[in-house]
């Protein structure tokens, strides 16, 4: 049985609410999705949370999957979850800043990074030096294995723009790593 036929069977099982089929989807995609979240955040605990959220949302939304590239559909949800997380983080930061101003407790020390440097490998450090949008594009392409046309469509940007960003981003990353 080919992998696409097998995947179609598993997805049909998921649609009928079969927990075993969902478990199979977890086994198939957890590694790639976790890697994607980890490279975006550099935080294992947070990646665990985002991965859980992804599969719970998959259960809730599987009825709306109408065929086509499943990876594309799944990584679109993953990207939305990451954006939701960023929005939540921005809100939290705003609240914290407001409270800090209120209490006049601003310290002269540089603000501690969200991610402890010792947790990060070399690639993670340099990925974090790229701008968020380019990092997202590079990682989405690497982990989702989607075609570039699909990626550009998902990001709602012209394909030429996305190609230039990818090229510049990867070249910069290599320079950082070698430098």
């Amino acid at each position, binding site marked *: 049985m080919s992998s696409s036929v097998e995947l179609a069977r598993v997805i049909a099982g998921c649609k009928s609410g079969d927990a075993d089929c969902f478990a199979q989807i*977890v086994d198939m995609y*957890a590694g790639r999705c*976790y*890697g994607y979240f980890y490279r975006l955040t550099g935080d294992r605990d947070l990646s665990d949370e985002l991965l859980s959220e992804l599969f719970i949302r998959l259960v809730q939304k599987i009825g709306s999957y109408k065929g086509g590239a499943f990876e594309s559909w799944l990584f679109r949800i993953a990207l939305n979850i990451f954006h939701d997380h960023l929005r939540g983080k921005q809100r939290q930061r705003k609240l914290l800043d407001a409270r800090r101003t209120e209490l006049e407790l601003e310290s002269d020390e540089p603000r501690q990074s969200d991610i402890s440097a010792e947790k990060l*490998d070399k690639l993670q450090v340099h990925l974090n030096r790229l701008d968020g949008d380019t990092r997202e594009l*590079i990682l989405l392409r690497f982990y989702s*294995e989607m075609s570039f046309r699909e990626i550009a469509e998902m990001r709602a940007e012209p394909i030429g723009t996305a190609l*230039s960003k*990818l090229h510049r981003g990867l070249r910069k990353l*290599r320079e950082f790593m070698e430098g």
Partner: protein
Amino acid sequence: MEDHARDNLKNLLQQFFGAADAKRADADIQAGDRLLGEYPAPMPERETILRIKKQIAATIWRRRRIAQTLRRSAAVAAVIAFALIGLLGRGPASRTDMFHAAAIIPAAIWDSDNFTTTDVDLVYFTGEVHQIESQLQALNTADDEAPGSTVEDLETELRQIETELSKG
């Protein structure tokens, strides 16, 4: 990266960058991909995967329960709605209802003014009613008479006693 995606990217680069630049861009992108491959991200812990599977099973169970509850509620609501339509939606009595009620009254009533003679049951009940009426009349008469005569008798007796006392 799958081969078809790689071919697709090569074609796209040629379309957008021209042959020479496309070759360089493709080499840069391939080198970037290799770099990402050399530093694999960690895999999720086994416990994390097990926890996610448990969460999924719990979510499915919860969703099924909600769906069942909704179906039951819809069924109960439908029954109540039908009952209300039956009770409230009848409106003024129709001609059929009136004919049905009229059928309870014996046909004799419609045929004769003196219906007591044409319906056996009615004859019996009318007789009963008449008997009860006469018994009541008799009792009333007895009530009217009995206490009166007793009082008169007592008065007569009292007068006799008074007369005898006054005579000494």
